[in-house]
């Protein structure tokens, strides 16, 4: 998942995509394509989910029981596989977000100008 405005296309840290997928699904169940659009929109298009990498991530979450899925007919009358977060998915998300915040705090402290 590269930032859109960076030609170098750097990857985020491992698990970043999973956290964003879980958070998006906590707001509302949706299918893969909607997830891509949702993350793009929510990040003010700073983040563009590489569409390809979404599906392996979804399968990993499915396998670990953090999300569930079912085939449904979408509003646009299309057969779509809709994903929904599970209670253990919510727990996992909270844990990961708190770990992410800690990491972010650490990085911010290191990067901030030294206080005398």
């Amino acid at each position, binding site marked *: 998942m590269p930032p859109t405005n960076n030609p170098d296309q750097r990857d985020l840290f491992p698990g970043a995509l999973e956290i964003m997928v879980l958070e998006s699904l906590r707001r509302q169940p949706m*299918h*893969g*394509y909607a997830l891509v659009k949702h993350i793009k929109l929510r990040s003010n298009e700073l983040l563009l989910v*590489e*569409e*390809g990498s979404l*599906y*392996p991530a979804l*399968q*990993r979450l499915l*396998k670990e029981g953090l999300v569930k899925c079912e*085939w449904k007919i979408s509003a*646009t009358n*299309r*057969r*779509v*596989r809709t994903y929904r977060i599970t209670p253990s998915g919510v727990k996992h998300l909270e844990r990961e977000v708190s770990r992410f915040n800690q990491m972010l705090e650490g990085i911010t402290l290191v990067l901030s100008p030294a206080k005398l």
Partner: protein
Amino acid sequence: VQWLRQLFSDGQIYRDISEEIQQHLEEKIQELVAGGMKPKEAEYQARREFGNVVLLEERTREVWQSSRLESIWFDLKYALRQLRKSPGFTLAAVFTLALGMGVNTAIFTIFDRVLLRTMPIRKPGEIVLLKEHSRFETGQLDMWAGDPETYFAYPAYQALRDGGHMIEKLAASTTAPVTIVSHNEADKAKMQAVSGNYFSLLGVQPVLGRVLTLSDDVYHEGSAVAVMSDSYWRGHFGSDPSVLNQQ
């Protein structure tokens, strides 16, 4: 049992993934077209932004292919699918294999019955038959029957028996037709004249009486001893134990 169930529900998992990716592409193309793009262009862009579909399906599957066993199972299913796609090739391959296995089985069965099982002796696999090979034509020495190359002069046999380090033990035998007279009837039979160590070498024990020993191996001086085959004893004497020690 979890992994077993997973193993067999794989087909469904992979079909779902393929369909999901297909739906994703279609939805994107539809949206691009709705935005004013030409269908061909839209499809091209959708596929480009999505990435390599085959590779992606593979990566998605890898999530479930946790074990080597599953990977083997997958290869096996792939192989079976390929075989089903080309029935002509499959038929030819199966027929060839079947024929090969059949012929091998038949040959081994014959070999087993004829050579391995018909020798009720100790260590049949270690028994060898000595043959003489000469660079020169030695002419025929066909005394009774059989292969002249397996005939050895008695001194030659003695030298081979006593000086041989290739062979653990060596016994000699030759066949001859004889007439056996018993009670009031005479019968032609096939006799085998053998050296005294013949039976001990083969590790054969008699049902009744004794077999020949080294002490019988004396030219013209030993007692007249004969060992009767079990089938001859049954066929001509009705397995009568009183056949022993009769002149």
